[in-house]
């Protein structure tokens, strides 16, 4: 579905990705974990066209990705960006409209109804300026917005950020459901344990390099991963 080969990305002097290769199979969940600054967000941004790789290539369904972010979205890849990034002055409803930018008005209406069903809280707040939502509500909105465009691939950058525990569970259930419906998911998460438990395959990034990859369930058992990313012991 999505193939990344030898990707290098740098910001001026800093090289954020150093030859990352990755294979994302259709209708699966690929999880990426790694420390702060490992380059996870950079990788997602490279896929969405927000940063231009220095070298390497990304192919989507066998063809190279288009050059501009908006074309990439049209091709079917959307991102739930890190730190929510809702449009603060637009209302919740309008934020969702933006999410469905590539769709027809009828489709937008239908999908909005579905998102509202998923997050009833958003429906209550439909007219409120997104900037005044609580942190968690914004996160729900960011996820709902990405679901609007019926993508083929969704890139989640820390979707559980700022969500209450119950909602976190719901979100992971949702991600599993999304996959069930045939959508491919790339998941960047700090809540590695939860992420690995829903994922099919996983990659561990360190300093811009893939240091470990494999089936998610195997990584979950891997003592090194356990020590470095799962907190050493089960969370209290």
């Amino acid at each position, binding site marked *: 579905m999505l193939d990344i080969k030898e990707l290098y990305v740098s910001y001026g002097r800093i090289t954020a990705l150093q030859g990352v290769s990755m294979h994302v199979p259709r209708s699966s969940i690929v999880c990426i974990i790694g420390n*702060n*600054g490992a380059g996870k967000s950079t990788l997602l941004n490279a896929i969405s066209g927000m940063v231009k790789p220095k070298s390497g290539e990304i192919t989507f369904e066998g063809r190279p990705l288009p050059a501009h972010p908006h074309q990439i979205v049209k091709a079917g890849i959307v991102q739930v960006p890190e730190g929510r990034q809702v449009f603060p002055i637009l209302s919740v409803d309008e934020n969702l409209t933006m999410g469905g930018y590539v769709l027809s008005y009828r489709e937008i209406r239908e999908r909005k109804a579905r998102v509202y069903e998923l997050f009833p809280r958003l429906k209550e707040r439909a007219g409120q300026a997104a900037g005044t939502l*609580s942190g968690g509500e914004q996160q729900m909105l960011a996820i709902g917005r990405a679901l609007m465009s019926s993508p083929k691939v969704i890139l989640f950058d820390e979707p559980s950020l*700022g969500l*209450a*525990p119950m*909602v976190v569970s719901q979100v992971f259930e949702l991600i599993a459901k999304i996959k069930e419906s045939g959508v491919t998911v790339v998941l960047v998460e700090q809540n590695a344990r939860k992420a690995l438990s829903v994922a099919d395959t996983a990659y561990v990034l360190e300093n811009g390099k893939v240091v470990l990859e494999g089936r998610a369930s195997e990584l979950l058992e891997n003592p090194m991963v356990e020590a470095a990313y799962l907190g050493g012991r089960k*969370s209290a």
Partner: protein
Amino acid sequence: MFLKVKNLTKRFGGLVAVDNFSMEVTRRQITGLIGPNGAGKTTVLNMLSGLYRPDGGSIVFEDREISGKRPFEIARMGVGRTFQNIRLFNELNVLENVKIAHGWRSRDNLLLTMIGGTRVSRAEKEITRKAEECLERLDLLRLKNEYPGNLPYGTQRRVEIARALGSDPKLLLLDEPAAGLNPNEVHELMATLRKLVEDLDISIVLIEHRMEIVLNLCEWIFVLDFGKKIAEGTPKQIRENPAVIAAYLGEESRDA
């Protein structure tokens, strides 16, 4: 009493975001503030730091009423805070970000500064020293010349904490400081926070959704739902409180 909040209320149009909320915080204590998304936690924090004016109730900090005071006045009384959505000054480097918070403590004024002289440069040195000390505490000193926008999300959160420490606060309000940190980093953060309380003699009010932090770190926890306090107590009490489980933690947390 160090901090005493009584019957705090805040409305946004028809929505009552915080409803008759009361809480008390004692010195050198880490207090947790939890609750579902949109429960009103950040709103409480915003009122504590003066960004929102309460619609009712009172906030008494070190025996002084602070509701209605302007944010900078409250900050100068010794309340520092971080923001849930990171709000660093992106065109100032990390060191300068922290220096901002300490600036008001220096004894100079604009006219003196304009003329210059050793007194001013001494003040500036003092600010720098203080800021570096704060960065050191959060292990950020080597990043002091970086611009925050270029840092990874998790690091930015730590810069926020360092900046909040910059003004030598007595009370530190942290809004989801652990968001975006991985479990190991969370452990480091917890250690750091404990150390801050010990070293600096401060109190912390902490909003967090990562239960491992709240339950391990806090001595007392308040739980908000729809703006109302639904429970308060020790971590143990809270974890077992059925109302909290129903509204917030979810069944699954029982085995956590």
